[in-house]
């Protein structure tokens, strides 16, 4: 029994090290001036460098802004499309439901290189390449499968029975939606929002290709720095990425958890 426990603990420890090691390395890269072979530790560390860079570098600020704009736009568009779809899939039985179910997952199954080059091709035709809506649409396409699945799993728990109750008690459809549907399904909604945010923030090829270079987000900007060997600047972008991903997600999580009892 004891040896089994120790083994388990070792696996925990190994997993934690493997997950956290890259984070630690990038953190150290971002604050170290020189860190080259064969030194195991940066020659000297400058804690202020990161913040000075964040405040003064216009490129960084532009990237931050692009990332946030696209992420917020993607979350909004994704939820606007995914919510009604998930409602239809969970509440109704209709012809072609199975087909629709497969359709939802297609953007996830077809290799992204194929989806994106096809999409770029048609965006050029619509004149949407390089536009905000074009890039947000490309991101949304990849968010939809996750968002619909997460919302569906939540909606299917209760189906429409509490909405029927609410309407029966005299609430309008809008009141029902905001007072019954949303609160009952906030876990699914939270998951969908978070996942869309993550997918949009981490998107590289879609942003680059459809954006025509107009939207150089944090994750896009990390690329040239990495290939050119400017690891320190790449790491600075990496840390910024972590901050603007983890902090909002953490805040959403805290806000949702403390706003009333968690359901299901």
């Amino acid at each position: 029994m004891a040896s089994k426990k120790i083994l388990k603990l070792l696996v925990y420890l190994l997993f934690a090290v493997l997950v956290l090691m890259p984070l630690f390395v990038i953190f150290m890269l971002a604050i170290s001036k020189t860190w080259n072979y064969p030194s195991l530790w940066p020659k000297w560390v400058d804690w202020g460098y990161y913040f000075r860079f964040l405040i003064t570098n216009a490129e960084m600020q532009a990237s931050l802004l692009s990332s946030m704009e696209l992420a917020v736009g993607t979350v909004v568009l994704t939820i606007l499309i995914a919510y009604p779809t998930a409602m239809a899939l969970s509440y109704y039985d209709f012809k072609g439901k199975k087909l629709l179910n497969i359709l939802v997952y297609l953007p996830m199954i077809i290799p992204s290189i194929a989806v994106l080059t096809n999409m770029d091709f048609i965006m050029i035709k619509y004149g949407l390449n390089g536009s905000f809506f074009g890039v947000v649409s490309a991101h949304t396409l990849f968010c939809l499968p996750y968002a619909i699945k997460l919302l569906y799993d939540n909606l299917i728990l209760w189906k429409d029975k509490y909405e029927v109750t609410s309407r029966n008690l005299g609430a309008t459809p809008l009141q029902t939606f905001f007072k019954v549907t949303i609160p009952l399904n906030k876990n699914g909604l939270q998951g969908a929002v978070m996942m869309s945010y993550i997918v949009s923030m981490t998107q590289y090829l879609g942003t680059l290709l459809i954006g025509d270079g107009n939207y150089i987000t944090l994750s896009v900007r990390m690329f040239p720095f990495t290939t050119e060997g400017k690891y320190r600047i790449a790491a600075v972008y990496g840390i910024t990425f972590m901050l603007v991903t983890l902090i909002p997600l953490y805040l959403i999580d805290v806000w949702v958890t403390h706003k009333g009892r968690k359901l299901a």
Partner: protein
Amino acid sequence: MLTKRKLILLLSPFCLFMLFFFFSALAKSLITSFGYYPLMGMEKLSLHYYTDALNDKVFLRIFFRTFIFALFSAGMACFIGTVLAFLFKRNDNPFTKPFFKLAQLPVMLPHIFIVLALIQLLSQTGLVSSLLTKIGIIHSYNSFPLLLNDQWQIGIILTYLWKEVPFVIVSLVLVLRQMDNRYRIVADNLGATKWQTFWKVSLPLLMPAIVNAFIINFSFNFGSYEVPYLLGNQTKEMLPVYIYDLYVQGDYTQLPMIMSLNLILSVFSIAFAGLVLWLSKHLPGGHTGGI
């Protein structure tokens, strides 16, 4: 309350979006792949782009290599993720909660993030190499094995594992928690040993979730560009890099050929996902799910 009009209203945003951006794109590339591209003065329909592609040794070799690679890396991620999910599903010790939070971290970060860390850690002049030099196992960075941009795609596999193992853990633990102990107790009461319960009850019930995770990981590994571009080996090119390079060369006469490659890729991926799902229906546990 559930009227047909409301259903149509609910489905229309999704259908319009897909029609506008996904299917029209698919249709356009389909037509183009048949050689219909009036912009370039090409108006004759033929299948020769497909037959050319399917006879192109270079393309087929790259295709096969990428397929084996995606299969292997997605399988590894699912295997390790499943083992860890079972190991850590129980709420019986204080580490489970922080562990689960920790597992969510890699899911949130972009691939480039881990690539950067791997370069600093595992390249020939990286930290591991430095450490081995310090303690005298190797003499100089030249004797450190090539782990990134190597022939065996080790760097890419490590990157995908770092991202995908946690993804598998997170999705399986959620299912395992929902399943709680209900069926384990029944099996136990009917005389099954722990091992029998695992193989006959827990694993089959989890199988649909594992298959879903596998398909998602496989498709990603098969068709995503950025990691093979950063950590791939020039002599062992991967399919997404191959197609992207062709596409951005800007040679418009090449477009029908590229589109035919895209469609071959798409049809293959759908067929493969379908095959995996079909196979999984015939495995124990198949009745309960799939996508």
